[in-house]
């Protein structure tokens, strides 16, 4: 969702959005543990600053594509959390009538075009939306979120090449959380910073602290402006950390506890809260209200979802084609 102008109050609004994602995903995790939600769930708890910072620089008619860990991206782009949670819960009131699920969220009305279960699979799709946008000359941009695991895939490299060659208005947002599934990036590639790949293809690229909301906002403001001016694609690598396992239920034994503790200090929500407090923009009470409000909304989304009907049996093979 766009913000009109950056003021101290903007930061409060962005914190509100980060809390909404955090509360939403913690609620989903809770429902999963209670077996109210089943399936394969990948949560982005700890990575909220990337989603919120990026989408706060976008217009409603810009296109966003995600991956398998994209609940936060959809919410940040403006998806309705009731319909989103209902989708994750497999209910008929979900965005996709329960046919998509956690990894295949589509919230077209919000400009969240699609997520995917294929690592890096939407990177080429974002190029296509950018191509169409460029032809329409409405200065729209396309954004695609993917993780460091995608950086070793063929379609990632093909896409960087074509985006650069055709100067497409696409922003590659790499959420480098250090792990491709269970394996550290260093075991998959000798390249330390995935932004290096983009530079090789002649794309404007940078690496930022993805747990620093303001750093993400600054990088994305520049990226969006570059794209809107028709100057070609931009690659922003955001260093971050997922505080949960690869999927819900993953014991994440491959990760040192000390490492997790270190990242908890860098929790993007806590960092923004500390900043707002030290600058005397927001009081403790107001900060608490932000959290409580988000948790109440997540609670209502859960009630909405679990009280929604399942899709009817006939829906198993409807909408296979658009006829």
């Amino acid at each position: 969702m766009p913000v009109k102008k950056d003021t101290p109050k903007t930061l409060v609004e962005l914190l509100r959005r980060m809390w909404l994602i955090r509360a939403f995903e913690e609620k989903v995790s809770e429902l999963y543990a209670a077996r109210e939600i089943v399936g394969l769930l990948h949560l982005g708890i700890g990575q909220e600053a990337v989603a919120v910072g990026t989408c706060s620089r976008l217009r409603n008619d810009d296109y966003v594509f995600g991956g398998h860990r994209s609940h936060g991206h959809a919410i940040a782009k403006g998806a309705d959390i009731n319909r989103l949670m209902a989708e994750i819960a497999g209910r008929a009131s979900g965005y996709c009538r329960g046919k998509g699920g956690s990894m295949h969220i589509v919230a077209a009305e919000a400009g969240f075009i699609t997520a995917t279960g294929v690592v890096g699979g939407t990177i080429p799709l974002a190029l296509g939306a950018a191509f169409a946008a460029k032809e329409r000359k409405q200065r729209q941009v396309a954004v695609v979120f993917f993780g460091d695991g995608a950086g070793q895939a063929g379609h990632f490299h093909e896409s960087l090449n074509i985006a650069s060659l055709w100067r497409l208005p696409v922003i590659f947002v790499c959420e480098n959380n250090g792990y491709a599934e269970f394996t550290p990036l260093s075991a998959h590639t000798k390249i330390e910073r995935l932004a290096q790949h983009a530079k090789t293809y002649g794309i404007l690229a940078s690496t930022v602290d993805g747990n620093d909301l303001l750093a993400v906002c600054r990088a994305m403001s520049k990226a969006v402006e570059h794209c809107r001016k028709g100057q070609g694609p931009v690659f922003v690598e955001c260093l971050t950390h997922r505080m949960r396992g690869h999927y819900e239920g993953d014991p994440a034994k491959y990760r040192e506890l000390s490492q997790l503790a270190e990242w908890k200090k860098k929790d993007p929500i806590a960092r923004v809260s500390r900043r707002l407090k030290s600058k005397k923009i927001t009081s403790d009470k107001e900060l608490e209200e932000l959290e409580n409000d988000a948790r109440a909304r997540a609670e209502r989304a859960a009630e909405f979802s679990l009280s929604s009907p399942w899709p009817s049996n006939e829906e198993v093979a409807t909408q296979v084609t658009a006829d």
Partner: protein
Amino acid sequence: MPEQTFLDAIGAALAEEMNRDTSVYLFGEDVALGGPFGVTKGRGEKFGANRVVNTPISEATVMGLAIGAATAGLRPVVEIMFIDFITLAMDQLVNHAAKLHYMSGGQLKIPLTVRVQCGISGAMGAHHSQSLEAWLTHVPGLKVVMPSNPADARGLLKSAIRDDNPVVFIEHRGLYWSRGQVPEGEAMVPIGKASVAREGKDLTIVALANMLGAALAAADELSGSGISVEVIDPRSLSPLDIETIAASVKKTSRLVIVHEAVEQGGIAAEIIAQAQQAVFYYLDSPILRVAAPLAPVPASPALEKRFVPDKNRIIHAAHQALGKA
């Protein structure tokens, strides 16, 4: 009706659809230069490089790019130069193009046409000769068409481009320079409708693409010995028009299916499964297949000739079906 080659009919249909609808864009390797067979020759000059887009040799990404463009309002036509290379784009085609309408609960439509050349001619070997149409029919959400003559190529391509779903339009290379009468204007061929290429009463032969010519030649020869053959061109493999095939078999009680793809798991297997449910009690003999052996396509012209089904093998199967072999 003017006469045209298969190639020119496709080229003309593309140009007409691009004129009619400014959201139609072509993407592919060398398309602005006409491609290796000249299908899109002159289109780059006419419509500009922004609408006839030469792409790098990156099939996976070009397919994904076209899907993304379709979600954003374009009606892309992607050319995959040889069906052997659709393997590289199968992830995007199968996981995104085919499923996004369903997975989004109807929010997204993917009006994408994939033009792809296939088949054996000219001893090009195992990586430039395959027939992989049956793979594609196994994917829910994809439509698959495979014309046998210039008029159907024109009419089906127009239908494919105007369809709101991903359609794979398969062009057999061996047909490119064949000629036929081609109607002008809005002569559409609906997707999902077979055609009866020759009427007969003793035996039904269903034949795909280039095999239709061989089947018609076999029918001619068989008529000399008093055997009346009905020949059906399915044209569309998914959805498959089993009604037309079943109606014919109810009349003839015998069915032979011919395709150039390998026999195992080929589209004939699906036709047989559907046909036996519809017409089992009308059949006088087992349904037979004439297809390629379970082997890669050989490069040697001597072996290639042995690999491809021909008129004589079809005649032999016809006699078998009639209990005369």
